[in-house]
């Protein structure tokens, strides 16, 4: 008798599980392409903010290199590098790296470096910094992040790559030093990484072979 009850209840649950999974699978199937397209477009938008689309003519999405350097790129995971080229010649590389020491953990950044080692720009992709204090790193909160445009390893020099409180060149926010400090440090390290592996970054070419 008991077995019978268990069996009926379980079959009942099974029917619902099948119908529920069916509906979910159907929705997933019909939205999958659109969601992927959304994600692609969102990423392309932020890439184009850093490297305007008239500066490159390659398919920046398929020209990706995965690199790993926990010390300079802030994460153990492989970091995607989007490479912009024009007429086969390298123009800039965009690194999707991590500033590991934000006030509330990891800050995900896009750092675009021109071939000559100057910064094309930096954007924050994702963070959990305090709203109203640390979120000044977002472009729609303040212009702070634009202060990196055009900077390089020699401008300012090594000692300038700090927030002002630490004797450097970059502003901190009122009430928040840790957040900008983490970003400045991560961008500086990204430039160091770019300098040491520039050859490697552009040589691993899936498209045209170039020698820079």
């Amino acid at each position, binding site marked *: 008798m008991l077995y019978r*009850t268990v069996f*009926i*209840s379980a079959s*009942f*649950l099974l029917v*619902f*599980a099948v119908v*529920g*999974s069916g*509906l*979910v699978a159907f*929705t*997933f199937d019909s*939205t999958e392409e*659109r*969601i992927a397209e*959304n*994600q692609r477009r*969102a990423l392309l938008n932020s890439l184009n903010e850093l490297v305007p689309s008239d500066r490159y003519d390659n398919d920046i999405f398929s020209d990706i290199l995965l690199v790993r350097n926990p010390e300079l790129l802030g994460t153990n995971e492989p970091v995607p590098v989007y490479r912009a080229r024009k007429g086969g010649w390298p123009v800039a590389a965009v690194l999707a790296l991590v500033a590991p020491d934000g006030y509330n953990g990891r800050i995900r950044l896009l750092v675009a470096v021109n071939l000559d080692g100057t910064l094309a720009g930096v954007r924050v992709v994702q963070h959990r910094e*305090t*709203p*109203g*204090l640390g979120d000044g790193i977002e472009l729609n909160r303040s212009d702070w992040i634009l202060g990196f445009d055009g900077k390089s390893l020699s401008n300012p020099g090594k000692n300038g790559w700090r927030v002002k409180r630490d004797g450097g060149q970059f502003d901190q926010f009122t009430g928040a030093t840790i957040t900008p400090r983490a970003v400045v440090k991560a961008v500086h390290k990204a430039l160091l990484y770019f300098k040491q592996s520039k050859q490697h970054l552009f040589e691993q070419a899936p498209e045209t072979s170039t020698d820079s």
Partner: protein
Amino acid sequence: MNSLQNIMRDGLWTNNVGLVQVLGICPLLAVTGTFINGLGLGLATLITLVASNVTVSTIRKLVRPEVRIPVFVLVIASIVTIIELSMSAWFYELYKVLGIFIPLIVTNCSIIGRAEAFASKNTVGRSFVDGFSMGLGFLLVLVTLGTLREIIGQGTLFSQAHLMFGEAARSMTIHFVDSYQGFLLAVLPPGAFIGLGLLIAMKNVIDKRRESRAVGIPVPANQTTQAAH
């Protein structure tokens, strides 16, 4: 017994999910930093409530009582997943903002609460009205709290409206004071708690006023006395 009007009044005021039952306050407090966030989560919750109430009510005679809770959970989880996928397909920007709170609707106690307390015992039509009014009541609380926190915290209203209404709505943002410094407390979680507390207090004050005005007039039998105090 309950007329549809009573069901509506229950959901919107006397038994409001946010102000009286105080259910599902985790997403309520977390996302109500702005008007638009409140509206987005409110709509998602509203749709979930209506869909789950209707589904549960439709199958109420089939479901064996011993497995009804697992079945309800399954129904709600499927509906929320479908809403999450649809949102990320058609409102991607808003989805990025509300992100993790959409799956949290699964655990919003008000939804399984309504399924168990109402939809499993009432007809489809009445369950629909119940889900709609409960959801609308919750949405109104979210929107009110979002509006208050946005005005006090950032000095704006309808900021980031384009997440929901497209690029044309970008200019909808109203700035009340030029170069407003912002009031951090209202933006942070404590501000959400204080704001919700104030809203609940306000509702109680209004209820009290009405009651004292009604003194002397014989009060009709009220099924919702648990809500008043």
